[in-house]
Structure formats: structure tokens, C-alpha cells
């Protein structure tokens, strides 16, 4: 039977928001055009800081895209009815954010015109090459999963499809962690704790993004989230935040223990200027302590608090990634241990990075793409959660 979207989605405000997001996308594309014709010299990136703001945005989007599918997994794989109804929206968000994040990554390449080369020449030892297959496979798997959740006769298949997506995104997010874990020569990165850390971060960021989008849709339609469901999601969010904080703490504490790594850790946690500030205030306080307070304090925990907590988690996520990606590159490589070094190539010097407008536009362009896909998706197909879970065809 055909689907007609709620009247609220035809309002002028909807089109205005869509237009704004469209402008963000255009801004990003314009920035890329400049970057491609003039080269990366117009960005803040250089030979010391080779990955910048676009990667911060892209990795957040990709990690959150994986984590947002938790909501559907809890429904399909773990059979919790309250989550089953939210599965399709989570799938749409996943596709939207994955699309936005990948677009930013591909457009930041030095030769984006050679994406075909990347798609046809594979190095089996390269995580990036695996990712080309993992991410495209992820799109396909989520589309199939959405189909099983949204078409009545396919419901019996939603559990195996959900399981496939569940396993696939674990592999994919592990891959995201391995991008960094395999960089054995860098003090910031070569660590086995990174893949599980990224998996748990994906849980926290994914559910935060989902909650905001879901709340926005409900507010738009003039309905509100059921108390019981809100409480469950809120508690789950809190658990994920604690777990993520645990992994980040484990990563830094073990690093601190190795005397060879301690100079780097002091840089990130105490001496590095903007990096400790972003880490402690941005990630730990705003990204973790504030949401936990908002979620678990007996006097708080209302719906506005949970939305605030979700926003704080997202901001904390960006702060974390800035410190992780850019701070990790700013600290000089330890090539000659036990020596003070200096050279014309910034050996022994802290790398400097100031993001340019072009990179920020590109990052927001990715957010814009995610928004456009989500907004058009909920208008065109039946993604808005129905509070009474469908019982037809499966148990």
C-alpha cells in the first residue's frame, strides 16, 4: 500500500531546511573545486599535519553511521520490541551519514579524479583498500536490511539481514580503528586497543545522533517519545558513554605507563595547548561528564536533558577526533630516541595546523549530504517510527 508523508513534511519550513542543507553541500563542492584546481596549499594541511578537519568530520560521520545501526540491531538481532519500530530510521541515518562521510573523504584526496583507480587497484594489505569493499558492501547490506524491515513479506528475513549488518559493521568499525592501529611507528596510534575503542565510540555517537534525529522528527510531527522507550534509550546512552570513556582512559593510561610514550601523553594531556583543552573540556567534560549528569541525575533525565546530553556527546566526539587525529600528528615523530633533533623539515618540532575555510566547508558539506538524504528519505518512504511495533509475520 502506498505511503503518504505527514502534512508537516510538506511545510515551507521543511523546504527551507532542505535548501539550507543543499547550500551547505554546494559550499562543500565549491571548496573542493578550489582545492582541486589550486592544490592543498590553500588548506591548512601540510607535510607534518597531513590529515585535517575533513578527516575529523568524515571519521565522525562514518563511525556514527556504524553505531546508529545499534538501534536496529537491538530490534532485529536481540528482539527488543521497543527498538524494532526504530530500525528503519536507523538504517536510513546510517546510509545518510556513511554517504556524507565517504564523500568528504573522497573529495579530500589529492587526486579525487582517480577514485576509479582506487576502486580497481587493490592492495590486500591496505586497510584503505579493504574499506573500499567494506563500505560499499555496507551500503548494499543496509539497503537489503531496510527492505526486509519495511516490506511485509520480507519480515522473516529481517533477522538474518540484521545479523549480517551487525557483523558487517563490527568488521567495518574495526577497520576504522585499524587504519590507525597499523601505524606502528607513530606514538599516537600503533595500539591494539584502538579497534575496540572505535567500536564503543560508535555506540555512543550513534545513539546520540539517532536520539536527536528521532526527537526532531517527533517534535516536528507534534508527537512525543513514549516515556518507557525514552528511559530505556537514555540509560543505554549512558552505558555507552561510560564504556567509551573507559576505553579512552585505558588507551591513555597504558600509554602513560610506557616511558617511551610519556612525552607524547604529556603533550596531549597537559602541555600541548589546544589539545589538552579540547581533550579535557571538550571530550571529557562536555562529551562525557555533562551527558552522564544529564542522564543519570535523579532531578534531571527529562526529555530536554536527554537531547542536551546527545548534543554534548556529539560535540565531545568532534573534540575527541580533533585531538586524536590532529594532535596525534602534531607531536613530532620519535625517529632518534634519546636525541634532541632539529631540521628544516620540522623534526623535533610540534606541528602547527590552522584549519582553512575550505576544509570546514567541505566538512559541513558532508553533514549537509547526510541531512539531505535523511530529510528526503523520511519524506518519500515510511521511516518515521510507528509506536506500535508491527507484529505481522514474525515473533
Amino acid at each position, binding site marked *: 500500500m502506498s505511503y503518504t508523508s505527514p502534512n508537516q513534511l510538506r511545510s515551507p519550513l521543511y523546504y527551507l531546511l532542505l535548501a539550507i542543507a543543499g547550500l551547505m553541500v554546494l559550499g562543500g563542492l565549491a571548496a573542493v573545486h578550489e582545492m*582541486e584546481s*589550486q*592544490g*592543498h*596549499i590553500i588548506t591548512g*594541511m*601540510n*607535510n*607534518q599535519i*597531513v*590529515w585535517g578537519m575533513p578527516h575529523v568530520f568524515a571519521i565522525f560521520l562514518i563511525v556514527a553511521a556504524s553505531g546508529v545501526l545499534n538501534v536496529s540491531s537491538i530490534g532485529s538481532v536481540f528482539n527488543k520490541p521497543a527498538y524494532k519500530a526504530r530500525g528503519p530510521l536507523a538504517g536510513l541515518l546510517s546510509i545518510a551519514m556513511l554517504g556524507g562521510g565517504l564523500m568528504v573523504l573522497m573529495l579530500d*584526496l*589529492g*587526486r*579525487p579524479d*582517480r*577514485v576509479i*583507480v*582506487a576502486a580497481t*587497484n*587493490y*592492495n590486500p*594489505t*591496505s*586497510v*584503505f*583498500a579493504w*574499506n*573500499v569493499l567494506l563500505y560499499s558492501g555496507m551500503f548494499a547490506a543496509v539497503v537489503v536490511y531496510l527492505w526486509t524491515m519495511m516490506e511485509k513479506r520480507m519480515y522473516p528475513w529481517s533477522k538474518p539481514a540484521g545479523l549480517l549488518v551487525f557483523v558487517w559493521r563490527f568488521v567495518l568499525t574495526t577497520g576504522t580503528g585499524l*587504519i590507525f592501529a*597499523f*601505524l*606502528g*611507528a*607513530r606514538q599516537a*596510534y600503533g595500539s591494539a586497543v584502538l579497534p575496540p575503542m572505535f567500536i564503543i565510540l560508535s555506540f555512543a555517537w550513534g545513539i546520540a545522533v539517532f536520539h536527536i534525529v528521532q526527537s526532531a522528527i517527533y517534535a516536528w510531527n507534534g508527537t512525543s517519545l513514549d516515556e518507557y522507550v525514552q528511559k530505556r534509550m537514555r540509560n543505554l546512552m549512558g552505558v555507552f558513554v561510560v564504556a567509551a570513556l573507559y576505553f579512552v582512559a585505558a588507551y591513555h593510561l597504558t600509554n602513560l605507563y610506557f616511558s617511551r610514550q610519556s612525552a607524547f601523553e604529556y603533550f596531549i594531556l597537559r602541555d600541548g595547548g589546544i589539545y589538552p583543552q579540547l581533550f579535557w573540556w571538550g571530550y571529557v567534560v562536555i562529551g562525557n561528564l555533562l551527558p552522564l549528569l544529564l542522564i543519570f541525575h535523579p532531578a534531571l533525565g527529562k526529555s530536554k536533558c536527554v537531547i542536551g546530553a546527545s548534543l554534548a556527546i556529539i560535540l565531545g566526539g568532534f573534540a575527541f577526533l580533533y585531538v586524536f587525529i590532529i594532535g596525534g*600528528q602534531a607531536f613530532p*615523530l620519535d*625517529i*632518534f630516541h*634519546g*636525541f*634532541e*633533533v*632539529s*631540521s*628544516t*623539515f*620540522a*623534526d623535533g618540532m610540534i*606541528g*602547527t595546523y590552522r584549519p582553512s575555510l575550505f576544509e570546514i566547508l567541505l566538512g559541513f558539506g558532508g553533514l549537509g549530504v547526510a541531512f539531505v538524504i535523511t530529510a528526503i528519505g523520511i519524506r518519500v518512504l515510511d521511516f518515521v517510527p510507528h509506536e506500535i511495533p508491527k507484529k505481522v509475520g514474525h515473533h
Partner: protein
Amino acid sequence: MSDIDTQRRNFLKTSVGAAAIAIAPGMLLFDIAHGNPEGASSKVRWGMLIDAEQCKPGCNDCVTACNKENGLSGGTAATDSQWIRKIELKDISTGRELSLPMMCQHCENPPCVDVCPTNASFKRADGIVLVDKHRCIGCRYCMMACPYKARSFVHEVLHDQNPDVPRGKGTVESCTLCVHRIDQGGKPACAEACPNNVILFGDLNDPASEIAKKVRSVASVQIRADLHLNPGVRYQGI
């Protein structure tokens, strides 16, 4: 029935045989027309031995020579390419000072080759690690992976490149061990230019070569040997 089959079979055998004989000389001609079919061989392993004790602080002749040979700008801004650089070192515990040139170490197990998604970063059979600019997509993952910070990214449009050394915007590059010179029987520009005989270039696999004899007799180390990359560039006097 079987007579006809046998006849056909014999016909096929002789015609295929005749065709093979007809084509064979053409295949030989094909080889000769292509000139030297040998190319780089794994029997050779190019390497360098750098004597840090003879390297003078403040001397930049190797860097200048490399820049001139390869068409680099010579600039030292954060976005300028540097294929070789002089590093001034001071031992924190003893206070001893020394200087040495640092370039791509041409590892046997290069991390840059492991991580490159398109196989643009590759190791030639004779041990030289190169970037295939035809395949490089400019992702900079190899730059993240290199323990020696040997690689540079081309941040702007380039003009007037050396016809022997193609370089372009949006790709990653590093010391090529002057592969264009080596393939003509020469040696790297830095080794040739050094006034203090700091850089000794040669075939590590040839026991009679000067470099092989020297690494057998003097103590030399590989930088970051703990990573087990087995670089082809060794240093003495550190």
C-alpha cells in the same frame, strides 16, 4: 566415423604445430624490438652507507644537489617538498652533537607499501621504494605510516619539471634514490655531491662492492631498527 575424427585430429595437430613455429620467431623479434628486457633485478639490492661522523653541521650540499637534480623548489615552508634533509642531533645524556642526512630509507618491508590502497607505493625488484604517480590518489596514508617522515605531498600546481623526474600536484613523493640515474649506471646526486664522502652508494648484494665490504667491516646501524623494516640505508657513527 572414427577415420574422419582421426583425420581431423591430425589436421588440427599439424596446423597448431605449424602456427606455433610460425609465431615463434615473431615472439623473439618482439623481445628484441623492445630493447632491454631485463629491467630491475632482485639479484641487486641498492643501498647507502652514511658516515655521520664525517658529516659537517651546516653543510647542505646533498640537499642542494637533490633539489637541483629532481627539480624541487628548495623551499622549506611547511608545504614544500623535501626529499632529503639534514638533521642536527644532540645526544640528551652525553651532549654529543652530530649531523646527518635523512631521506627515504628504502626499507625491505616498507610500511608505506603495506598501507597504500592502490599499490602506488611499491618496492622495485632491486629494492628501491617508489611512488607510481600514475596510481597515486593522494590519500597520504603512506605519509602517516612512514617512520622516517620521508614523504612529501605536492600541495600546488608544478611547472617545468625535470623530464627525467615527473612530479605532480596531488600526489605523494619521496627520494627515488635517483632511479633515473641508477638505471643509466650512475649514482644518486646526493652521493655524488657530498664533499666529505659521507654517502656511499652501491649494491649491498654484491660482496665485492665497496659498500658491502664496508658494512662487513665497520659498525653501522639502521634507524628505528626496532621496527624490523630492514632499511637499505645504514648509518655509522651514531
